[in-house]
């Protein structure tokens, strides 16, 4: 109750992509394309976070409300490496990934493993509590100031067809696309990927077929945590580093609900759609509804999807008529 405003409204705002003046003095069609491009950039980050969320949900039926916090933590660790130990960006990035892998295992072992088989209320609450804990711990150690993230990308926008994109944004989109392809191949061809799919399909039968379900749970947390920190580092490079970036994690819900909560492809597509909607709503509707409409549009999508198609575009339909 007597709390400081931890999440004062505006959820971390993201740039529209490219330099602003290029947007302002062009034709309306160009504005549209620039907004779309910005939406794709933001959407690919949402997609990355949503991907981690879906990996955990598919493997272990755990709804991870702490996905945004894992992302934030990754970015802070990377920042800490670079500024305190003066590690160059690339090694620092790799150390961050290693750290998040270890952290993912620890969370799974210490917090989620004891919760196995508990009621969904308890599981949701344990991740909500984990999210609160991580966010406040980061706040305790680093404070709530905004830091400029020391990423080695140039500030010069790349121009093509009259649109402009910053190198860091381009790298983000390419990394996201690369990761999506990698995950597709992983699930399609590798043994581990098949084992994960089997576990997601039916835990009991997967167990009977000799798959170590425990290992799959740990693996899903590792992958989710690593993917989240990749997203976090890129997000911090695009905008800036601050604790409110964890609220980007909330955008995971519109994205995954839209795509179908247990579908990897759905998560990515959902992330892109949410990013696009937000950016276009921010560009065209904020005149009428004020600046917050950008953040809110995602939640409106969420409520509408839940009302008309609760299992999303690609989700598995559990038929319940109650």
């Amino acid at each position, binding site marked *: 109750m007597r709390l400081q*405003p931890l999440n004062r409204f505006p959820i971390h705002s993201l740039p529209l992509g490219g330099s602003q003046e290029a947007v302002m003095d062009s034709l309306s069609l160009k504005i549209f394309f620039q907004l779309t491009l910005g939406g794709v950039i933001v959407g690919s980050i949402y997609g990355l976070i949503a991907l981690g969320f879906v990996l955990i949900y598919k493997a272990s039926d755990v709804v991870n409300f702490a996905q945004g916090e894992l992302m934030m933590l990754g970015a802070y660790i990377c920042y800490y490496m670079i500024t305190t130990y003066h590690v160059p960006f690339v090694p620092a990035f790799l150390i961050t990934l290693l750290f998040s892998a270890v952290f993912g295992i620890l969370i799974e072992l210490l917090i989620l493993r004891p919760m196995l088989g508990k009621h969904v209320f308890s599981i949701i609450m344990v991740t909500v509590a984990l999210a609160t804990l991580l966010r406040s711990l980061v706040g305790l150690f680093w404070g709530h100031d905004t830091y400029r993230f020391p990423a080695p990308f140039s500030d010069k926008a790349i121009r093509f067809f009259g649109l402009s994109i910053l190198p860091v944004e381009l790298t983000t989109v390419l990394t996201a696309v690369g990761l999506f392809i990698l995950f597709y191949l992983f699930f399609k061809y590798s043994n581990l990927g098949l084992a994960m799919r089997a576990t997601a399909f039916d835990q009991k039968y997967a167990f009977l077929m000799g798959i170590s379900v425990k290992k799959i749970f740990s693996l899903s947390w590792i992958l989710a945590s690593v993917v989240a920190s990749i997203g976090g580092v890129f997000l911090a490079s695009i905008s800036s580093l601050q604790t409110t970036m964890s609220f980007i994690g909330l955008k995971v819900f519109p994205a995954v609900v839209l795509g179908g909560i247990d579908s990897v492809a759905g998560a990515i597509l959902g992330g892109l759609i949410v990013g696009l909607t937000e950016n276009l709503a921010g560009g065209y509707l904020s005149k009428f509804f004020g600046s917050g409409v950008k953040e809110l549009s995602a939640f409106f999508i969420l409520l509408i999807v839940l009302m008309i198609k609760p299992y999303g575009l690609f989700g598995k339909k559990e038929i319940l008529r109650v």
Partner: protein
Amino acid sequence: MGCGRCKTSYRDDIKIFQTGFVKFWLTVLVATLLVFPFVASPYLLYTVNLCGIAIIGALGLNILSGYTGQISLGHAAFIAIGAYTSTILSLRLGIPFWASLPLAGFVSAISGLIIAIPCLRLRGLYLAIATFAFHFIVEYIIVHWNGLTNGTGGLTVPEASLFGLAINSDRKIYFLLLFLVFCGAAFAKNLFRTEAGRAFIAIRDNDISAEIIGINITKYKIRSFMLSSFYAGIAGGLYAVTLSFIGPEHFTFLMTIEYLAMVLVGGVGTIAGTVFGAVFMTLLPEGIRLLKDAFSHDYPFLVTRMADLQASCYGIVIILFLIFEPTGLFGIWIRVRNYWKGWPYSY
């Protein structure tokens, strides 16, 4: 005390005060509570008032989440609606407190109805996400509807008066709260001895079976939502009067987490547990403050980061209770009681 007591009728079994022993100690408790405001320091009284508000709000959440099994992550939004409704009604329309407080409850209940209708199709996780989205939409409206809520500037709550008696001191608020907490707890306790309450529990335990035995799930889910948000609205109205200033920063998602923690720490689906949990979670920040004062010499940064310290304690407490003591404080209480009942032959 409880040894060898044999219940011979169903009436005996559902009695609220099962033994004379319980009645005796409850009388002592009530007497203590009546004397308390005359001996307590103003700060302690204020903290206890916050406990009372927390009990009312947490009872509402426990009715919905604990007894009906509908996970709500939007409780702070309902409390905010209650607080803003009562404040705006008395500030803009000059409606007296005795009317604005129940109206706050009703407006909150109506908003509960609005969110309940789309949520009827949803269960578990999806319901949690939908109520979560509802929270952010309410927060957005509060921040952006400047004309009504004064946005981030907040509103100063006018002094409340009840039948000519101005409620202007913590002591008067205390007695008002004591009465309302008693009514709220008694109503909730009795609710679960009636048909409606039993229907809520049946929906929680197995909704398909509940439907089969003839419970109209839609009707009861809506009732549970409305009742829960009515409690939240009343808690919000009282919160506004106690704080005498409200702004969007009072009703963040952390407040929802705090209330969920009360329910979980106290004991899901118990009335006594809700009271324990609400008191525990309200006193926890005070404990943290003492700890902070003890350590702030060596770690001066703690002073400026009190909010983070508090939030991390909420997180740790919830996680530890969920893992090690899922029945909450109520479960511990029952265990201790049963141990002493049979002492020294506790096996």
